[in-house]
């Protein structure tokens, strides 16, 4: 017994001694980390998330007005204005799609707003029968922005022909009704998201300061990763043929029928991801974000900091993406190397954001619950 006691005392002594040494050293080199986590969360909810929903709503409402004008006075000029407002609304939607947790998760935003490629056969059948229920699962690929994209632009037809379809075509009234249903559903959902955020979810979000599964930070980072995965696969990789032995699938581009905005949607989406990373509002006001959190924790990455590595990778991806020409559906077959270069850099960004960052922050981002040890 005495021997054991001696061993214990010796071990404790060595431990404390080494520890004191360490303590001194670490205090000199690494002063205490102080970071205002709850300040970061309120910056996110007040300056990033809530304003982005509002911006998306403004753009969607403005498209609704332009579309109503077009239906009122069916001219090609009005059609073009409506399309322009549509493009804007689709673009601003990219600023809110990331935040699919809380009220936005309840409304299943990504699936309801932006499932593409859209199912033109289902859309045509819905229009010709005039009876459909958009909340049914089988209509998910036949609504939202992609459905309106199809109806407003048509597949390889002239503007005049699109006008005819809304004007004198036998199904013109039904077609107009269908656009309004798609539009109305998105407006309703977006309004209820905004009111839920303002009513109570903002407080819930700000108060959940932990790092466990389902904490606000966990949800945000998880969705940030989901979003970058969407750019990598849905917006670029799949059209480029990454899942199909290199056979390009141009028709799988987002906003395929508009033809001119696929790349810019991806760019907006990426810049929103970057803003979220930086805690930056759309006006450019830079508040507390994940970058500041990583800096406060002094997270290293090879010879530099992880924050610098991530910021650097964001700029590389932006440069590569800027080289990709519209329409993306043509670039994926005619300019494969350029699109592929952007894809490769996106993968690197994804690894930094999905593996290095959460690991350094000790954040559990897996949706699935379970025990660890």
């Amino acid at each position: 017994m005495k021997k054991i006691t001696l061993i214990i005392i010796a071990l404790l002594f060595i431990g404390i001694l080494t520890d004191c040494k360490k303590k001194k050293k670490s205090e000199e080199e690494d002063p205490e980390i102080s970071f205002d986590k709850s300040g970061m969360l309120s910056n996110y909810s007040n300056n990033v998330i809530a304003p982005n929903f509002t911006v998306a709503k403004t753009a969607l409402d403005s498209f609704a007005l332009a579309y109503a004008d077009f239906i009122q006075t069916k001219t090609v000029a009005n059609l073009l204005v409506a399309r322009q407002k549509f493009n804007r609304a689709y673009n601003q939607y990219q600023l809110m799609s990331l935040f699919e947790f809380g009220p936005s998760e309840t409304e299943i935003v990504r699936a309801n707003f932006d499932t593409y490629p859209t199912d033109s056969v289902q859309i045509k059948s819905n229009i010709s029968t005039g009876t459909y229920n958009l909340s049914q699962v089988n209509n998910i690929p036949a609504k939202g922005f992609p459905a309106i994209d199809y109806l407003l632009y048509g597949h390889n037809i002239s503007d005049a022909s699109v006008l005819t379809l809304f004007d004198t075509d036998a199904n013109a009234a039904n077609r107009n009704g269908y656009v309004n249903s798609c539009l109305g559903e998105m407006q309703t959902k977006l309004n209820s998201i905004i009111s839920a955020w303002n009513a109570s979810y903002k407080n819930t979000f700000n108060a959940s300061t932990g790092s466990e599964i389902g904490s606000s930070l966990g949800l945000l980072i998880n969705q940030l990763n989901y979003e970058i995965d969407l750019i990598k696969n849905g917006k670029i990789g799949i059209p480029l043929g990454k899942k199909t032995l290199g056979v390009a699938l141009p028709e799988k581009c987002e906003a395929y029928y508009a033809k001119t905005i696929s790349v810019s949607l991806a760019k907006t989406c990426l810049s929103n991801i970057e803003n979220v990373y930086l805690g930056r509002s759309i006006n450019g006001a830079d508040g507390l974000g994940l970058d500041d959190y990583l800096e406060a924790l002094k997270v290293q990455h090879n010879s530099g900091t992880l924050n610098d590595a991530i910021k650097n990778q964001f700029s590389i991806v932006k440069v590569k993406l800027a080289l990709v020409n519209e329409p993306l559906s043509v670039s994926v077959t005619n300019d494969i190397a350029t699109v592929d270069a952007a894809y490769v850099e996106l993968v690197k960004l994804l690894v930094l954001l999905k593996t290095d960052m959460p690991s350094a922050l000790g954040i559990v981002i897996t949706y699935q619950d379970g025990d660890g040890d």
Partner: protein
Amino acid sequence: MINNIKTYFTKSVHLAPLAIFRMAFGILMLLSTLRFIAKGWVYTMYIKPKLFFPYYGFEWIKPLEGNLMYVVFGILAIAALCIALGLFYRASAILFFLVFTYVELIDKTNYLNHYYFISIMSFLLIFLPAHRYFSLDVYRKKELFATNAPNYFILLIKFQVFIVYFFAGLAKVNSDWLLHAQPLKIWLPAHSEMPIIGSLLTQQWVAFVFSWFGCIYDLVIPFLLFSPRFIKPAYVLVIIFHLATSLFFNIGMFPYIMITLTAIFFTENFHIQLINKIESLFKRSKKTEPMIYYNPSPLTVKLFYSLFFIHFTLQILIPFRYLFYDGNLYWTEQGYRFSWRVMLMEKAGTAFFYVREKNTGKEIEVSNSDYLTPMQEKMMATQPDMLVNYAHFLKDEFQKKGIVNPEVVSESYVTLNGKASCLMVDKKTDLSKEEDSFKTKKWIIPFNNN
């Protein structure tokens, strides 16, 4: 000396500690099983997945179809209850051990040291006379009743607990843990929002104190528990330590299991009084019991000693099997499991898989989420043997889809204890041609430790 040891092993001890242990174990297992079902994990871990990651040599173990897995967990719950009650004890212990181990062997995604601990404990319980005192079996068959038995039965449990702690401590004696306070330096600041202690957790020296305390605790506590003089303060430490771990880490029932089961080290009087209290709860007045010694037959004793010897030899050797492998243990995880390496590393990864058509060299990037649950994908990305299992699955899957001679390659970026992520495997290796085995996995890109 040898005589002393022999006396220590064979001296007559009261069965109350074993009876309490049996009840505690049964109740905890019942609660754990019900919690597991209530959390929906039977579905997410055993019904929903499209493929399962088998242990090497146990590829033949498969889950039952669909909702039958709930029946399996129902059996576990009933067996646990019977163990607690001491009803058909031996059969229940065998059943619990077999069914629990079966469930654990289905998918190594779900491997936890604490599940391994429970498998072993339930295995050891089979051989103990834990039902001969304060049990329904005694009520049912009076001749089973005994108050005393040789000490070695209880020692079996105590030694096992000793091994768990001591090896967990030994595993912490490494430079990452002691000199860099990793991974606690990452994990503790993540809780900076906690009241009172939150601001402390962000300070580096606290991570060092926790690391050193954890290591010394694990190495010393098993000795303290064996000493009647130190058992009380030791048990206070046990409670503090495990409650602290449950506060900081998502480790479910394990802290409570350890706190409860470690009580077996208390004196027999403590346990006898505890049983008296339980009896008085049921308004049963305590009759004075005659001392009845359970004396196993010489053959049983021989068999028991053989079991004792083989079991603990294995328990001591298995954690050292990693010495046979090249490379960084945390990186390759060869010989990592079944060694009481608990909460030792912060490891995360992203694995990209590509199926390549051999003749054309053209590739398909696999959507892992089409085949794997989030948990499986997370675990697979950092564990080389799981990369191989998955590659074999993908080969079959894409062959069925019409790809001739598919090669399966992967790029898995892994970060370990705060180091920048780097490739664990690159596209040069056709993983579908590699076999999972006990041999060194030569295709693993060595960990660049700088």
